[in-house]
């Protein structure tokens, strides 16, 4: 009985550790821009760009924001930390802007690799990926 209890407890502890590790990993994102992009970028500016409050870089060129799919853990972490919203709130906010003729939402890119690829190819793009996925083809700004 005690052995079964210990096995169950160990399994639960392992599961909890995995969940904590997964959660910690999910929040571990970096923000990337094109290597030629020399505009000053901080978390506040990124948030304003992904909320549609600013549409151009300080240099005057249009911002091309890239988002990961709604269910992606990085998207959840980014929306929470940078935008202060849950993905469903972000989606509602952007839908309202789209359907009232105010803005176009960030382009949803299906994978971190494609975010990196698009940012590397587009001087005005900005996106977020996990730290390990950024590589040397883009500039990490946060």
């Amino acid at each position, binding site marked *: 009985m005690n052995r079964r209890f210990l096995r169950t407890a160990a399994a639960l502890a392992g599961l909890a550790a995995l969940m904590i590790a997964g959660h910690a990993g999910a929040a571990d994102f970096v923000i990337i821009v094109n290597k030629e992009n020399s505009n000053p970028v901080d978390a506040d500016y990124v948030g304003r760009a992904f909320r549609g*409050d600013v549409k151009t870089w300080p240099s*005057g060129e*249009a911002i*091309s924001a890239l988002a990961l799919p709604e269910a992606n853990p990085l998207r959840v972490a980014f929306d929470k930390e940078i935008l202060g919203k849950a993905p*469903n709130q972000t989606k*509602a906010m952007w839908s309202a802007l789209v*359907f009232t*003729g*105010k803005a176009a939402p960030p382009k949803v890119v299906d994978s971190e690799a494609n975010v990196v690829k698009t940012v590397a190819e*587009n001087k005005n793009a900005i996106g977020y990926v996990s730290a390990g996925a950024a590589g040397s083809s883009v500039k990490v700004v946060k």
Partner: protein
Amino acid sequence: MKKTQISACIALLLAGAAAPALADDEVLTIHGFGNQDYWRSGTTSFSGSGPHGTWQNDDLGLIFRGTVNDKTHVYAQLQADATDPVQVLWMFVDYQVNDDLRVKAGKVKFPLGIYNEYVDTRGLQLSALTPLMYYDALDIVHDAYQGAGLDYTAALGTFGKVYLQGYFGNTPNSPAPYQAPAFTSPADVLEADTNDLHQWGYRVNWETPVDGLHLLASGYDTKTATTSLGGQTPNIVGNENLYIFSVDYTTEKLDVKSEYAHHHFPLLDDHPGLSSHAWYLQAGYHLGDWTPYARYDSVTADSAHGGDPSYYQHTFVVGIDRLLLDNLHVRVEDHLNHGYAMPVFDGDIAAGTGKVDWTLLAVQINYMF
């Protein structure tokens, strides 16, 4: 809906589906929505519903965004429903002066209340049927103005942010007269033709420091020339005006909204005019893909006859939303009504002929992309 209209809309929707939403640097972005309703009412007909129900309430719409350059965009919405042909609901040019200021010109959806700008996109709303104050029949909130406007955003530091909108123009059907729904009493129904001479309006949307809480004030004032039916010479020039106060509190789980609207419309000669008011309080709670919600709705379509059930309606709505797929919702809701102003103003029944207490069942499937 006529077959040609359906075909046109399906073709447009397919075109839209084939062209997924694109980023800001793309030339053309297309989004769209579709709503299909089933309504069944117990003893009082409303918008075609009756004991056997109706599927006639449907909408298809497309929203286009064209990029002229980094600062200039063109927006348009095409829409068709069960009774109207494909029409351009709004179309305007938007110029971004800077991050805080935009100017626009063309036919622009009225920035009124919380819902008016996306009143047709049901997927963005909590319930199947919009709050009563947004119904065309009540004539409180109109579709769009033709003219010019500006949007300004001001950061208030620790006090949040405020979005200011202002515009000047008139309603799109000016100068051609339109039939105003002018009711005064069952025995004294006046009909009037009106020309909107000019109009100005505003909306102040304060994003408060409380996360998710917005407070809004909006309205317009229209200089209106009213003539007798078929008459050519305006015999009264008066001011039609509207104001709306709104509270919107939305968090990850909770969605609470409440609005109050007051509208005054001038009538013929020495008649004091038609005043109407409406308010509602609604709340929903997100439980994963399920969202139960409830609303209390109240309209008084003519304040001069506030005690007559032909001119007031109090409605309690309870319903549930199920998110089936990404952006595909199914909703079922029941309306318990006291009074029958909406069927009267919608032209379904004559004043004095409705049942005071009646029910309405609404089932809706809506989709947007």
